[in-house]
């Protein structure tokens, strides 16, 4: 068989082609068990992008990107603000001090230095931003969470049930989308009464169809996938298929939408505050600070500028992270199309 010269040490004890005998492994080759011959797994250097599980690949990419860490840091700082505002604030955020109103940034009054100035009631702007992050982040995350849960559940339901149930869900989603935001928002706040919780509910009520449309599309697409058919073929009941196969397909797109929505929610809360229906005074939120401050844009620029800056940093971080997540999870970006 071999025509080469000289003595040769066989790499394989027996010819692997016979297939029915165990194969001795050489270095770098997978040992085999059982009676059937086996392909070695591709010898891939560790850390290679192609073969790592999705999660680890994601973290590796993330670790590599310094930009991403910058944005994560911003979010973490805001999160700390929201969790323990007292650690970061320099003054009581609610106490009005009328004689000390509209002080420029850096002014010291009554022993407190107002690094970002004071507002129209003499409250410390920095402290209000710190405390306001609680309301703003709560609203943003809670609204996104509620709308995301409601919306994607309905979307998945519409996509799996199809038929008239699906049609009704999707038509209702369309109906909600076709009512002007402010009408819906005002009516919700009017019916429920204004409060932080209701602002969240209101935003969730207005925004769920966005998730529904995405989840619906993803569900339909997932149902065409062969592994879903394969799961059905092994006898998986419908709920199992949804839980194990469809929902994991839907989630990345929903995450992408959610990151886009997160920043928007803060803006929406600002808009609600602009017409007086946002977070109730005197509790600070970035949105209400912005809308209160807008009247002073010509006289006391710091009132709206600093909460605006905080909002910008939040939106920027969330969006850039969203872009990053999307680039990693969902390069085709069907998510945005609805």
């Amino acid at each position, binding site marked *: 068989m071999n025509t*080469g010269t000289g003595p040769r040490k066989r*790499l394989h004890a027996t010819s692997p*082609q016979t297939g*029915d005998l165990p194969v001795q492994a050489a270095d770098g080759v997978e040992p085999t068990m059982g009676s059937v011959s086996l392909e070695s797994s*591709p010898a891939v250097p560790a850390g290679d992008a*192609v073969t790592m599980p999705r999660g680890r690949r994601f973290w590796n990419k993330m670790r590599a990107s310094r930009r991403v860490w910058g944005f994560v840091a911003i979010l973490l700082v805001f999160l700390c603000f929201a969790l323990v505002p007292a650690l970061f604030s320099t003054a009581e955020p609610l106490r009005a001090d009328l004689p000390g109103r509209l002080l420029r940034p850096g002014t010291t009054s009554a022993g407190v230095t107002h690094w970002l100035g004071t507002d129209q009631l003499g409250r410390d702007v920095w402290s209000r931003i710190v405390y306001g992050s609680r309301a703003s982040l709560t609203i943003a995350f809670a609204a996104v969470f509620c709308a995301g849960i409601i919306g994607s559940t309905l979307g998945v339901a519409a996509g799996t049930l199809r038929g008239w149930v699906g049609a009704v869900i999707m038509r209702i989603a369309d109906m909600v989308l076709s009512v002007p935001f402010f009408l819906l928002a005002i009516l919700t706040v009017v019916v429920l009464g204004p409060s932080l919780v209701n602002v969240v509910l209101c935003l969730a009520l207005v925004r769920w169809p966005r998730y529904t449309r995405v989840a619906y599309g993803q569900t339909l697409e997932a149902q065409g996938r062969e592994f879903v058919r394969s799961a059905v073929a092994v006898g998986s009941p419908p709920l199992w298929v949804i839980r194990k196969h469809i929902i994991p397909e839907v989630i990345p797109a929903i995450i992408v939408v959610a990151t886009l929505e997160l920043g928007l929610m803060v803006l929406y809360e600002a808009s609600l505050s602009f017409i007086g229906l946002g977070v109730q005074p005197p509790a600070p939120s970035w949105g209400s600070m912005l809308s209160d401050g807008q009247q002073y844009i010509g006289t006391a620029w710091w009132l709206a500028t600093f909460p605006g800056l905080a909002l910008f940093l939040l939106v920027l971080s969330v969006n850039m992270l969203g872009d990053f997540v999307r680039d990693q999870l969902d390069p085709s970006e069907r998510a945005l199309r609805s």
Partner: protein
Amino acid sequence: MPEQAEGVVADGRSAGEAREEVLRVEGLSVAFGRASERVALHDVSLSLRAGEVVALVGESGCGKSLTALSVMGLLPPEAHVLAGSITVCGKEIIGTPERLLRRYRGSAMGMIFQDAMVALNPLQAVGRQIDEALRIHTNLGRGQRRDKVIALLDAVGVPDPTNRLRQLPHQFSGGLRQRIMIAMALIGEPRLIIADEPTTALDVTIQAQILEVLKDVTQARGTAVLFITHDMGVVAEVADRVVVMYGGHVIESADVVETFSTPAHPYTDALLHSVPRTDSVRGVDLPAIPGSVPAPGAAPAGCPFHPRCSDATQECLTMPPLEQVLPDHDVACWHPHTSGRSR
């Protein structure tokens, strides 16, 4: 190149040895990654003469498409050439600026892609897509170009070409789409066609038709064809010469008849024998090759086939050179089968 004496070769085969060399790849190495950490092509050399059909054979990830893309200068951005030279009609490709390469593509060399459904712009009329190369490379008038396109479509067997020019790719069947791909590659009258698995996506009855058309039109023009495939049946059908690749290396290169009668590399040999034949007996196991094809750029050191090779020895942990074992028959193996397979 030393022996490019001839000008135009009118007739393909009869010109024999003296035929102009259209493509020469010398010592081409290509790697992926910023630090070239994954070398996907190792020292690949091959050459093509006018009118010749060379089959580049290999399984997924062996580097055959990468070779083709290197020739076209269309390597993906994450890949880059480490070493080597590629000349098409005497012009160097490696290191040539994109602006100049653009002039060669579509005029000196053309490419037929595997899946015409995705390789054609789905939203542009096929006539316009075929015409694009003419618009880019010639100064012909609209009418002249149109006439050329129609004539070529007719030649590749698209019925009613005048009317179908305006249609979009999805309005054609798979076979017709592939004919359009062929016309598109040929419209600029290139000396070299690279056909990357042009029939893999097609049914056997259609495949036969397409192979015939491809042979007919290229032979008539004396076009050299680098035919990439993994199907030994197709190789047998079209090729004059066969170059077998595995794990980014050229491991065997021979005349087509010899490849099938006396494959020298154990891989080529095993490949031919692991497929059921008319004489394979049901219930008797096929002689399978153990293991699996290495991922691109992840072939083991030494001979890339050694983990799967029954003949492998310690020597195989170093890469054997591509050497002539028979006249016009090169093989890269420490233990080549020189007299055909024993079984």
